[in-house]
């Protein structure tokens, strides 16, 4: 999509550096999320601390990238594809940082559930794991689409979010039934609800990142767009 080089070479380097950095941040968040899921499944409390530490690095990245983006805008007055790239990266940075926050919530909940030594863990873990893997796959797919600026792949990721939302509703219904059957499990079940909710939010943020890819490539804002509108957006020539 971006073809040829800018007459000002430094500008090219700055844009390339921005692209490299967002992908690095994506990789960091992806591994942070995987750690959080492992930590929850295996009740590995030490891993929980690692997830929290990783989140500090993610937060710092967000601040630094925001600074770089601001600089690019004021110094280069970007237009067209450059401007769409910079705006798309800016939005994706925010969504990645939120995913990091949600991963941290999962790790913290894992710590609490483990500390409470609650019965509730066993029956629901399988569904949580399925939903977590789906969200992780969405994140991975969104970052992959971002790296390749592939709008078609991005549209596919957006479609997957419905599945993650549905899984959350399923888990919630099951947990409610569980809580009604045995009120002693309420505290533990509620902690599990927060984990399920965090996973659902990660799906939403990954969907946003996929939407940013479509914006960068096609110049179409697909936030709040219907499936048909998205199909139309990706089928336009770019």
């Amino acid at each position, binding site marked *: 999509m971006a*073809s040829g*080089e*800018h*007459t*000002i070479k430094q*500008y090219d380097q700055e844009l390339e550096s921005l692209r490299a950095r967002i992908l690095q941040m994506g990789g960091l968040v992806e591994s942070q999320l995987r750690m959080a899921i492992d930590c929850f499944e295996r009740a590995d409390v030490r891993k929980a601390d690692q997830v929290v530490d990783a989140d500090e690095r993610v937060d710092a990245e967000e601040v630094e990238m925001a600074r770089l983006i601001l600089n690019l805008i004021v110094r280069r*007055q970007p*237009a067209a594809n450059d401007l*769409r790239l910079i705006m798309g990266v800016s939005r994706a940075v925010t969504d990645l940082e939120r995913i990091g926050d949600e991963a941290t919530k999962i790790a913290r909940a894992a710590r609490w559930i483990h500390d409470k030594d609650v019965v509730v863990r066993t029956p629901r873990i399988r569904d949580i794991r399925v939903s977590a893997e789906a969200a992780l796959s969405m994140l991975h797919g969104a970052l992959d689409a971002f790296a390749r600026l592939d709008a078609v792949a991005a549209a596919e990721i957006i479609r997957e979010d419905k599945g993650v939302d549905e899984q959350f509703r399923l888990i919630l219904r099951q947990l409610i039934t569980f809580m009604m059957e045995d009120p002693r499990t309420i505290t533990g079940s509620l902690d599990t609800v927060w984990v399920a909710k965090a996973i659902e939010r990660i799906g939403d943020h990954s969907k946003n990142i996929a939407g940013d890819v479509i914006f960068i490539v096609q110049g179409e804002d697909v936030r709040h767009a219907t499936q048909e509108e998205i199909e139309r957006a990706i089928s336009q020539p770019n």
Partner: protein
Amino acid sequence: MDVPIEVSEQPGGAQGPITLKAEVRDLSFFYGDFQSLKNLSLPIYEQRVTALIGPSGCGKSTLLRCFNRIHDLYPGNRYEGSITLHPEQLEILDRAVDPMDVRMRIGMVFQKPSPFPTTVFENVAYGLRLRGVRAKAVLAEKVEQALRDAALWDEVKDRLAQDASNLSGGQQQRLCIARALATDPELLLFDEPTSALDPIATASIEELVDELKKRVSILIVTHNMQQAARCSDYTAFMYLGELVEFGATEQIFLKPSKKQTEDYITGRFG
């Protein structure tokens, strides 16, 4: 030529229905044997600012100068095709049409502020006198109106009898605009009007353009892309005498259809 977009989606917050002020159709221009414009067609919309952008030598100034027949002043120049002024369908390039008539209705402002070597008042009154206006009161009123429209009145109202060369660069340029406005033109041509001005003077001219477009259609040549992005409703990108792309400014600068256009506005040209 079709009017492309609906009233509700107008660029730059423009108001009112979109109508054609002028239409360029299959226009070619020759400096002797050299063809400097190749088969151009584009619309100029009423009460809108249209910007012509492109690298040096692309023909944007050549195109601009077709509108008021300035090329006629030099032998060996030749037009093909047409420029039609609406609503009465006046064929501007037709030999039978008097260039003076055209220039009364289509004013031009140049890059270098070029006041006549006379007083502020006489600069603005010149076009009116040419038209045969002699009554002092009428002249005074029209001169004042033109100076007000050019946002210059307050600064020169006590200096109308002074030589125009005493004014600052920005003031001189606004004086040239007032001079062009005095004859109530329908179309104003600006040829890089702020290239010779500092940023503050530039901003005041751009603000003026924004005000003026409510009354007169504007065609502006600029090599400053940000100026085109700021000031215009429509943008035409030209290269080597051809029109590469024409569209609403927002679309040209956010998502141009042609790669060449995108390369130019993002600084990937050459």
